[in-house]
């Protein structure tokens, strides 16, 4: 054994040392595992909590007895029968009003059925139960309903139905839907991305490829990084001041001949969201551009390319997957943000689809917030359903962006 070796443990000392090293490793590994478990449990709890609210027993009564209108069981009514019933049951003024909104003959059976429930039978929800309660204490619930609401029917219901997606808002939870909110959210995402993607990528290209490295660039860079952390409500204030008030002629569409609106349009909100996600877009695009290897730029310059040709043909195509990742984050942020929309003036109740950038609008988070603040339990149930819709929408938009990214990510 040579002299130097004595500085290291040998034999049993080595093994005891090794055991200590493994022990430390095990402790840390366990800590990391627990962190993962905590994360998984929290997310599972979140999803369970949402699902728990969206499904369950409902006790309801009809204010008017179905037998007064028809002898057939109401679930079996055909479109023609429903038309007759509605025509007889409703006052002619009410019927004509509905007919003017959309021809009664052209409405589907399910639409007419909902009208029948809403206008004639006047469904009245007495109580709702969560999914857990419904599954575990079914007998108790049945006994309770029989005692408290002898006339009521008890039904296990999914509040999330196809009608929920396709109907606009209503003051009755049973007939309310998220159609206007989903469309509003899609408009927001569209406008925000249309604004933030080109502006963000442009700014990133300039900062990365053209801007000289001096104090001014440093200040701008630092501020962009800081802006990414500014509370969203502040962006809401900005949107209110700039888009809603200052640029009202543009954002209300007055400059384009739209007369019946003010600055609180989906355009104002979308642009506010665009500014909100802009720092995120810039930082992501910068990172993506930075990740393009310098050897590629040199190769292009080496064959006599100008900087613009280098950026356009080589840097941007290679940075595109990273830029798409930034867009995915921006989409998620836009879908989820609530505070700026409240400030910019999202409507809490509209039943008309937003059909132009100058429409009044609402968005899913606003709708969810609105419903959860209602005292009636059935509104909490539809809020839970709306959350599911929001999550699915988020996942599908992100999935689309990821698919697009993978298409661009064609590796040579």
């Amino acid at each position, binding site marked *: 054994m040579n002299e130097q070796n004595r500085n290291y443990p040998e034999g049993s000392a080595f093994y005891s040392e090794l055991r200590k090293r493994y022990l430390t490793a095990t402790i840390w590994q366990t800590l990391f595992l627990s962190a993962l478990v905590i994360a998984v449990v929290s997310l599972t709890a979140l999803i369970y909590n949402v699902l728990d609210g969206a499904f369950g027993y409902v006790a309801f009564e009809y204010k008017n007895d179905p037998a007064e209108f028809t002898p057939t069981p109401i679930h079996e009514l055909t479109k023609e029968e429903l038309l007759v019933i509605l025509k007889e049951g409703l006052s002619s003024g009410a019927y004509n009003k509905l007919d003017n909104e959309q021809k009664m003959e052209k409405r589907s059976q399910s639409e007419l059925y909902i009208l029948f429930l809403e206008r004639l039978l006047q469904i009245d929800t007495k109580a709702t139960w969560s999914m857990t309660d419904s599954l575990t204490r079914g007998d108790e619930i049945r006994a309770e309903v029989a005692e408290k609401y002898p006339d009521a029917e008890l039904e296990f219901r999914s509040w999330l139905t196809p009608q929920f997606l396709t109907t606009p808002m209503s003051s009755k939870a049973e007939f309310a839907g998220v159609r206007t909110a989903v469309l509003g959210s899609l408009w927001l995402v569209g406008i925000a991305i249309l604004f933030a993607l080109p502006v963000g990528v442009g700014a990133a290209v300039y900062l990365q490829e053209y801007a*000289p*490295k001096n104090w001014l660039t440093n200040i701008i860079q630092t501020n962009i990084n800081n802006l990414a952390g500014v509370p969203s409500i502040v962006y809401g204030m900005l949107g209110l001041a700039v888009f809603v008030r200052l640029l009202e002629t543009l954002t209300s569409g007055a400059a384009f001949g739209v007369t019946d609106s003010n600055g609180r349009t989906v355009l104002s909100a979308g642009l506010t969201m665009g500014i909100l996600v802009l720092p995120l877009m810039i930082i992501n695009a910068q990172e993506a551009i930075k990740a393009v*290897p310098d*050897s*590629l*730029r*040199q*190769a*292009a*310059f*080496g*064959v*006599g*390319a*100008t900087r613009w*040709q280098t950026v356009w*043909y*080589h840097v941007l195509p*290679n940075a595109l997957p990273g830029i798409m990742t930034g867009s995915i984050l921006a989409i998620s942020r836009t879908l989820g943000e609530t505070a700026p929309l409240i400030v910019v003036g999202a409507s809490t109740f509209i039943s008309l689809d937003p059909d132009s950038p100058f429409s009044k609008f609402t968005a899913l988070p606003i709708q969810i917030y609105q419903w959860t603040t209602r005292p009636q339990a059935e509104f909490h149930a539809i809020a839970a359903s709306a959350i599911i819709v929001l999550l699915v929408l988020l996942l599908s938009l992100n999935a689309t962006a990821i698919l697009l990214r993978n298409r661009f990510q064609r*590796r*040579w």
Partner: protein
Amino acid sequence: MENINYAIETNDLSIHYGSFTAVKGVNMKVERQKITAIIGPSGCGKSTLLRAFNRMNDFVPGCHVTGKLLLDNQNLYGKDVDPVEVRRKIGMVFQKPNPFPKSIYENIAWGARINGFKGKMDELVEQSLRSAALWDEVKDKLQQSAYALSGGQQQRLCIARTIAIQPEIILMDEPASALDPISTLRIEELMQELKKNYTIIIVTHNMQQAARASDYTAMMMIDDQRAGGVIEFDDTKTIFTRPGDKRTEDYVTGRFG
């Protein structure tokens, strides 16, 4: 009339990074259609000097050049000279093969296209690949990824790409240092072919390569201010057999460096 033999001349050329002088006072006359090697220990400024020849150092923040670099009696660092034009005339092959992440065909066609090439692209691609001794290996897979080629093939593709824009001078920055001995040999053979039409300046760490392949050799060394300079420039034979400078002799005989 003496100038006509020289492709490029430097006149007291110095390269600075901010206040630090990396390469100092280089005076070199590079002969046309010859291979000139630049050798020297690591960090002596060989690559910096080579990159100064086609203004690739322009992209390094804080880097500036003093003195003159003359191509056809025109100072390439003159105010009215566009660096893009310089790089069009003086092509470059880099240390690590860096083909574009595109097809083999497109690797050659792109440079031609952005420079406004008006001839028949297919012919240019074939001719360039033939000149780079790569045609027979890739002629059936021109639309395949350049990344599917071996390192040596990629480097020859990079040479073909450079030839395609028909430069006057080709700079090579240790073009074989990332390659195996067989690929290295092929690159050296290729250089001998290319010098019939082009002037080649090559930076190399490999003494045998310089001795085997080059006609002239410039020996670079740093001084006590850490600034590199050409201490000896002569035909390769002289440098390797009867060097005038003791430091060159020590270096080429492997006594240091």
